[in-house]
């Protein structure tokens, strides 16, 4: 199994967080289920392995198209993979996909939409070469070229929405959005509508998603062995334990104790 992230070129860093490649040379002996909390990022995925299924709050079982885009996830989702894994993707900064492609992101929240339905002919130069590419680096280079062409064509400006959304990511969702709007001298209504258009959810909701996504990443980095929950909850910007449990359960669908237990069991299973 091979999973690797690649950084974008400097021109694309305002809009793109990273590229990723996930491949397995061998066919998995049994199906693999990967559960993921909402990350706060949108992405485009090009699958050159076997098709796989997604489960989320909207879809019990959705077979993903060969090329798709996905907007903000507002709840945890699961990938059910079997056979040969092979995919390459672009992870966009929260407003990046909209800035580069001019898409209304509220249409794609919790969705996996076929890229050909959205971008049409502009993809014809990408899909074939990705399938034929000999190695992960070549595939990432093809994605980079695709985005650089789009950058030249669209010439997007890095606006207040991009700035604010990236700031919310940087601060791990621990921000007071009303104060942020005051600091930026923006009209609340206009700002919220632009944010919904470019990110897919409201700024306050996005900050909550980002906060829980960061907390789950912290749990994973500590392999779900938490010594001081109070410190972690405080650092992640929750007022108290009940606020944390309510938010966590809403976004992941599980109480924190069950979430940790399930992941500890998965870790033990994978380690054996």
């Amino acid at each position, binding site marked *: 199994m091979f999973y690797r992230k690649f950084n974008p070129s400097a021109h694309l860093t305002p809009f793109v967080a990273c590229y990723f490649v996930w491949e397995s040379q061998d066919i998995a002996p049994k199906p693999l289920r990967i559960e993921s909390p909402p990350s706060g990022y949108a992405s485009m995925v090009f699958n050159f392995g076997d098709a796989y299924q997604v489960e989320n709050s909207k879809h019990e079982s959705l077979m993903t198209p060969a090329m798709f885009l996905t907007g903000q996830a507002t709840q945890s989702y699961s990938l059910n993979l079997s056979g040969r894994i092979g995919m390459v993707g672009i992870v966009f900064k929260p407003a990046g996909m909209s800035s580069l492609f001019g898409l209304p992101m509220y249409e794609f929240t919790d969705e996996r939409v076929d890229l050909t339905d959205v971008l049409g002919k502009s993809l014809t130069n990408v899909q074939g070469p990705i399938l034929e590419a000999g190695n992960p680096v070549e595939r990432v280079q093809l994605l980079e070229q695709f985005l650089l062409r789009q950058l030249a064509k669209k010439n997007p400006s890095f606006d207040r929405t991009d700035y604010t959304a990236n700031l919310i990511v940087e601060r791990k969702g621990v921000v007071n959005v009303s104060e942020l709007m005051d600091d930026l001298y923006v009209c*609340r209504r206009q700002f919220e509508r632009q944010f919904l258009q470019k990110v897919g959810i409201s700024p*306050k909701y996005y900050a909550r998603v980002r906060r829980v996504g960061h907390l789950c990443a912290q749990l994973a980095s500590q392999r779900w062995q938490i010594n001081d929950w109070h410190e972690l909850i405080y650092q992640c910007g929750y007022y108290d334990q009940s606020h944390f449990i309510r938010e966590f359960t809403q976004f992941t669908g599980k109480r924190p104790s069950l979430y940790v237990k399930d992941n500890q069991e998965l870790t033990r299973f994978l380690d054996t």
Partner: protein
Amino acid sequence: MQTTTQESVSDLTRKGACLAFFTAYDDLDTARMIGLAAPDATVHFLPLGDDGKGAFWEFGKAVWDLLIDCFPDISNSVDKLTTDGSTVTANVTIGGTQVREFMGIASKGCRFNSDHVFVFQFNEADQIQHLTINWNHAGFVKQLGS
């Protein structure tokens, strides 16, 4: 495959109609709000029980006009929109400051800020056919000081 494409295009139109509804609400323009619904559309303000059911164009407009009259700075923020077939669910935060009595709640000049769930059902012509609105009414009343 073709069916999937047609459905997704239809979804796009309907989310746009929901956003137009909330933009009109933010503009305090109830005529534009009801203009997005079919003439025989219905609305149900769930916490009000059977008293909260009625025709979208008449009863719905009357309730929204009353809300705007009692909370002149009423505003909304759409947190997210999700589709499921012909239904679009909008999670919306609504806030406003009370200046007049509202449905038996005397004005104490308090401000409310409350999560609402709007469930829009659309017809084949992409018009709103039915709307259900839910919120924590006890919390709403408490915020108004009653």
